[in-house]
């Protein structure tokens, strides 16, 4: 505290400078050039209009989320709508997860351990090696048709088995689309429950994985399912 008082006494003129410099020197002029104007009225009006729209949609649909804090793959966030699981994430923190869902769905989920209990419980059991398959509704409204097709196909690959990107492309009747299949899996919003980790490159290597820990996590999940790598 004493030190701060000292700062005040010693550098009082510095602080005055923040409040008013006249005439402004070049340093202040450069700062002002960057920051003084602020957003123009049109920009502001546009942003406010978007904000009103975003706020109006709040409450029209409810989503809920919760976190499994200490799973073997770190914190796992799970979000549900009234229709089913919307997103699972174990890469970023809570705020990043929520903001990602909002951007994707226009809904801001509320924390509710009660409403998400069944889903978190199943994921927890799975990660503990006590559950082979999930029995959860999935909400795929926020995906493209192609993503839905790919993800539905990969859901049919059972625990303990793997498939290649190319083979999956053939399964959905688009044998030339292996790359697009890879991209659709890379943006899988519901990893683990939709087992994109069971899809490997055609040379048998792991391919990619966008969750936390990358391909190492992918390998861990496969080993958990009894796949020998």
């Amino acid at each position, binding site marked *: 505290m004493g030190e701060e008082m000292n700062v005040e006494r010693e550098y009082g003129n510095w602080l005055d400078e923040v409040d008013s410099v006249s005439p402004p020197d070049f340093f202040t002029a450069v700062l002002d*050039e*960057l920051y*003084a104007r602020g957003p123009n009225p049109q920009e502001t009006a546009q*942003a406010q209009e978007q904000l009103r729209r975003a706020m109006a949609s709040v409450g029209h649909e409810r989503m809920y989320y919760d976190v499994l804090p200490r799973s073997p793959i770190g914190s796992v966030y799970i979000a549900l709508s009234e229709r089913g699981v919307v997103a699972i994430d174990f890469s970023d923190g809570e705020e990043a997860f929520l903001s990602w869902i909002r951007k994707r769905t226009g809904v801001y989920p509320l924390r509710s351990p009660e409403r998400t209990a069944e889903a978190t419980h199943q994921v927890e059991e799975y990660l503990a090696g006590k559950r082979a398959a999930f029995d959860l509704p999935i909400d795929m409204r926020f995906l493209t048709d192609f993503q839905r097709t790919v993800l539905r196909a990969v859901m049919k690959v059972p625990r303990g088995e793997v498939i290649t990107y190319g083979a999956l492309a053939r399964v959905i009747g688009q044998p030339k689309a292996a790359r697009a299949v890879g991209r659709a899996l890379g943006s899988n919003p519901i990893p683990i429950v939709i087992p994109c980790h069971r899809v490997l490159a055609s040379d048998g290597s792991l391919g990619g994985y966008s969750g936390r820990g990358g391909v190492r996590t992918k390998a861990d999940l496969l080993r958990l399912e009894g796949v020998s790598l």
Partner: protein
Amino acid sequence: MVTKPNFDTLVEAHSAEIFAYLWRMVGEKADVEDCLQETFLRAFRGYSHLVSGSNYRAWLYKIATNVARTHFSRRKRAAIHKVKIDPSRLQGGISPVDELDRQEMLMVVLEAVEGLPYKQRAAFMMRKYQGLSYHTIATVLGGTEDAARANVYQALKKLRAQFVTVTEGSREKPWAKR
């Protein structure tokens, strides 16, 4: 018994000001709009827990400060971000001799500002460009008024020191003369 204002009233009363603050803290236009929505959605989520009669303005600033910080740490992690200046942001107040020097000068200051410790940058913007009192800044940042003052002072000191280093390194340039 003071009743809390309707949340929409807060949106209408403070969104322009918070937008201006985020404009100064975040930069890129699309990101600023996004951070504005994020701020008010987070605020909406927490509004029922807020005590009536609170300093709503400071509370919104606090949320906006956190939102902008999250935005920055994510961007830093992406590591592809390059500081750049959108010409439409400038007010045209300085006219150094040649355009290259001018750009260079603006870049130096912009990078110096973005390089400040986050609290210092936030305190500086709130004081100098948002015109908040030290009392309010202290509420936003969660410290004493003296600490808020010290943050602003440190920011300014660092910025000026960097500015002087650069301009002295190029004394022959006309704009470097005071």
